[in-house]
């Protein structure tokens, strides 16, 4: 579950005030808005990458407003994937478990599990510059899911994909998030995309979030 209460956050020149919305446990929420309306800023605030000037953020009923990004139980998939250019796919999937001190056999097991789930098994020893757009997004997704976070935040994850890959990725996102019972906050500018993937839809209009 993700709950945002009276959130105020500064986005460059303007401020987004009084943001309120809730995505119940295991639901797929989509936040829509035009380019530049501040939706990425809200997502960054939820992930702990942007300081908030007011309000609270709850993950699974825990107040995480002042928690470090890595302690919020949130997996983040940025717009372009933002893969680590020097690391292989295997190292991406193993990154978070390793940082959190998992034992090496547990890491290896989780990497194999994720690779099978996301169709990355044949790509494990490849580096990002040898991957297609869809493959990169799958790696970014796997990296975010590795330690089984309660919430997944997706920043326009489908915007750079061609039509066929887009359809595949939609199916994959729906399947993987449903199988893992994960709560999702997905932001997009596309209403079609929101209708394709979302259980719940919200829209930012004039600096305010309204339910659809």
């Amino acid at each position: 579950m993700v709950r945002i209460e009276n959130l105020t956050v500064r986005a460059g020149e303007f401020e987004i005030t009084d943001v309120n919305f809730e995505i119940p446990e295991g639901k797929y929420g989509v936040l829509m808005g035009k380019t530049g309306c501040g939706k990425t800023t809200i997502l960054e605030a939820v992930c702990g990458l942007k300081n908030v000037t007011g309000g609270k953020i709850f993950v699974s009923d825990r107040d995480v407003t002042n928690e470090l990004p890595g302690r919020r139980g949130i997996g983040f998939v940025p717009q372009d994937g933002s893969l680590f250019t020097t690391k292989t796919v295997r190292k991406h999937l193993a990154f978070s478990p390793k940082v959190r001190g998992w034992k090496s056999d547990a890491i290896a097991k989780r990497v194999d599990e994720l690779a099978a789930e996301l169709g990355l098994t044949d790509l494990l020893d490849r580096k990002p510059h040898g991957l297609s757009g869809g493959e990169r997004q799958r790696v970014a997704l796997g990296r975010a899911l590795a330690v089984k976070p309660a919430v997944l935040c997706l920043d326009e994850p489908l915007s750079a994909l061609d039509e066929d890959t887009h359809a595949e990725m939609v199916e994959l996102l729906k399947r993987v998030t449903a199988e893992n019972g994960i709560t999702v906050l997905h932001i997009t500018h596309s209403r079609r995309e929101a209708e394709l993937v979302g259980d719940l839809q919200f829209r930012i209009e004039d600096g305010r979030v309204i339910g659809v």
Partner: protein
Amino acid sequence: MSKSDKPFLAAISSLAAIYLLLIVLMLVADAIYGFRAVPFSSDDPDKASLVKIFTDKAVINSIKLTLFSCTVSAILSLIVAVPTGYLLSRYNFPGKLLVDAILDIPIVLPPLVVGLSLLLLFNKMPPGGTSFEDMLNSLGIEITFNVAAVIIAQFSVACAFSVRTMRNTFDQISPRTEQVAQTLGCSRARAFFSVVIPESWRGISTAGTLAWTRSMGEFGPILVFAGTIPNKTEVLSSTVFLEITTGSLETAVIVSLMMVTIAVVVLVGVRMWDRKNEGGLYHG
């Protein structure tokens, strides 16, 4: 290429060729003059020869000190430039513009002024009392006109170039990857070491090479702050200066050619090593 693009390509190629030719011709002039004037060996004790130059104790010590001091100042430059470049690239703080401008001073200052300023800093400061040099001397450390002065003089200028290079490197790496690493459980420090440093490896190697070669070419600050004492503070750039002042142009040219060779070997060596470590689509 379309026909209309040809004049444009010809124009830019010609301008590049003029500069390229100037560099190559300078080196050719050195080589022709040097190898015509200096035989491999000579029985005449007053005539310079390659054997005599490269077995001369002062020249050998000068080569050794050059390799040592350049390596130390390049390492020191990286130790300072990597964090400074990162700070300037990722954080905003009051007075950042001023800090940025101050960091460029060693690049724009005439080299002799850098040396003079170092000399005054160590020997005339704090004013009216015991100088820093005196304080260090009482601890058994000597700076001015010693090897330490050579390294400080080289570092003062070389580090500014490294800082610039590292800042540009970090500017080109999206902060998003570090932010992702933080959401994955890294502290800012761990994200820096496990994500940013590997991604900026190429920039680090360029900054290090630049600092090394720049240090080898440094002369003005060394002359003023460390002197050109044979077998003590003489580096290859001072050897060239000493040989010119004593009228031994041919020896100066041979030593210059050796400096060019060392610089080229270092530059090519580092580029090749970089390419090898870049790897292909796999591994890492």
